């Protein structure tokens, strides 16, 4: 067993293929899964139709309600579907089936059924994606009892999390970042290497400040840590990986050590997940804090198109650094 370099899209594909080989009840459905490139942009399903056939790699019509609803029905009826809604923006067409059905069935039927499905909904600003192809909606689903939400930052996260997501009996919203599909990373080729849902990774140890983040912002926070280090600030970078449940133990431990917390998110800051983390730490770790918790996130505007406006909208490494330094000025 060894580490192999591959893109995140390929890492998810490998993880899915391994699980499909392991368990004949795992299958995937979504738009464009079996067309020439196995996906519209990043070869997410390339070659899978050849190995698994059209009963398990199901190329669907543009019918988001039914892609999601069928996945719920198929999960209840004894299979483990992976439904791909391609982008979180299109996931909104199927919020009903995800929120009213997938998240509720086990509960409202008194535990008679489980809904073991994964729904892939890619998030994040992708250059020029504008208002309807660049949204990050993770907070919507974290807010929904019954759902699990994960958001990988690295290729290794991407593979380990898709495998764990497929194996859990809960419905999982798997939110990969569109801008990271082609980002390369080191990935284990051991089919038994999984990443536990609910376990964060500490990407860098530090002593002065904790930056909690997820998805692409974890990578930008890591870059920010390099710059901060040259200015004498030692930042600990936590990549949450799993947003619900989230790894409170790791964050509590880190903040108890550093006494400072910044939450960096790409999604709209208002009522985002950073607000929950911030409130939780303020309620439970106030005695350890040297200064109040800061957040950085997107403004509450739709994602603009033109480059200068898009750049204005984005959370960047520079902005993370600037916000991080605020924790060291007057409290």
């Amino acid at each position, binding site marked *: 067993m060894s580490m192999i370099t591959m893109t995140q899209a390929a890492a998810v594909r490998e993880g899915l293929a391994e699980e499909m080989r392991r368990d004949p009840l795992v299958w995937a459905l979504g738009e464009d899964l079996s067309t020439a490139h196995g996906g519209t942009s990043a070869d997410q399903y390339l070659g899978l139709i050849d190995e698994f056939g059209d009963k398990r790699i199901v190329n669907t019509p543009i019918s988001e*309600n*039914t892609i999601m609803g069928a996945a719920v*029905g198929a999960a209840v009826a004894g299979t483990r579907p992976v439904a791909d809604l391609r982008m979180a923006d299109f996931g909104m067409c199927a919020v009903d089936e995800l929120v009213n059905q997938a998240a509720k069935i086990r509960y409202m039927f*008194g535990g*008679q059924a489980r809904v073991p499905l994964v729904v892939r909904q890619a998030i994040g600003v992708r250059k020029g994606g504008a208002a309807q192809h660049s949204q990050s909606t993770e907070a919507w689903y974290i807010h929904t009892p019954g759902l699990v939400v994960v958001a990988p930052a690295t290729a290794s996260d991407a593979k380990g999390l898709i495998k764990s997501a497929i194996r*859990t009996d809960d419905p999982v919203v798997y939110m990969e970042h569109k801008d990271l599909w082609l980002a390369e990373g080191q990935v284990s080729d051991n089919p038994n290497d999984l990443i536990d849902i609910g376990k964060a990774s500490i990407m860098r140890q530090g002593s002065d400040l904790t930056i909690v983040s997820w998805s692409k912002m974890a990578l930008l926070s890591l870059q920010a840590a390099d710059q901060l280090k040259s200015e004498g600030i030692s930042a600990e970078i936590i990549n949450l990986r799993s947003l619900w449940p989230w790894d409170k133990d790791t964050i509590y431990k880190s903040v108890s050590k550093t006494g400072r917390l910044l939450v960096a998110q790409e999604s709209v800051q208002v009522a985002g997940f950073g607000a929950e983390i911030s409130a939780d730490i303020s309620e439970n770790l106030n005695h350890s804090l040297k200064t109040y918790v800061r957040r950085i996130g997107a403004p509450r505007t739709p994602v603009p198109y033109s480059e200068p406006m898009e750049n204005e909208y984005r959370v960047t490494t520079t902005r993370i650094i600037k916000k991080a330094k605020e924790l060291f000025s007057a409290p």
Partner: protein
Amino acid sequence: MTNNTASNYPARILEMYKTMTLIRAFEEIAEEAFDAGLVNGSIHQYIGEEAIGTAVCANLRKTDFILSNHRGHGHAIAKGANPEAMMKELLGKVGGTSGGKGGSMHIADFSVGMLGANGVLADGLTMGVGAAQALVLRNVDAIVTVFVGDGTTNRGPFYESLNWAMIYELPILFVCENNTYASSTSTRKVTAGPGPVARAEAFGMPAYDVDGNDVREVDEIASKIITNIRNGGGPQFLHAKTYRIKGHVSRDKMLYRPEGETEANWKNEPISRCADWLIKNGISEAEINSTNASAYKEIRDALEAAIAAPFPDGKLAYKDVQDLGNRYLGEHS
């Protein structure tokens, strides 16, 4: 397939009469319980529509799946759910089909293949095609039946699901129970075109009209098309015309109804029609009366048992949310 000249045919119809009567008794006594303030929610009654669910489910096996809508009591009983457990669910008691988590609108009994009544119209359709896909993938010899109302034929997922069922050639029966009302709106006034059968046929799906208040006619057609689905004939559509004798929901005063409409339709209700036929075909009036008495006794006993049953511990509110993240449900201390 049903052979309506066979010597045991009246006995077959008598069995359906028993089921219809049990459903009617359940709905009437559930209404009494609602009026007495015993039901912690509302109920959607199936009175007048009993023949459809009864005759369709009479042609299904325990291993087949059904998905229902908000008006699901009749479908559940017809598929074999226990009325006492259902009544306990309505009252939110221990021993309810869903342990008191769902109530009337979420009646489900997975042990008999009843995958749930549902509060959102058309979601049974999308989940139904997925359940059928799972049966195919698992190579299980069973079919799925989805019950929808006329109002649901105006939701987008109706079209997605019919298209989906056809392109993947799924073993599924769609039953449209046309009770003429979409909540309190006359469906005709908000629906273009000739109706549900034409809409199904637009997808190339075999579709049939049936008098939904004639249990024998529903049985005859259901038997034929369910056999066809089992033999690989693909999706089929049954449009059963009926009438919703009661309001949309138990609190509905039906102020939107033309005077005399309910009374006129009551003359056509399916249970009396079935009783008349049975009596003409060798079943004694005494047997009909004893069937009625035993159905009402069963449901009265169910209500008594439900009243006597304890309420669940409030802390069970935290059970069965999900496996992951249970440490952080935010329980009240």
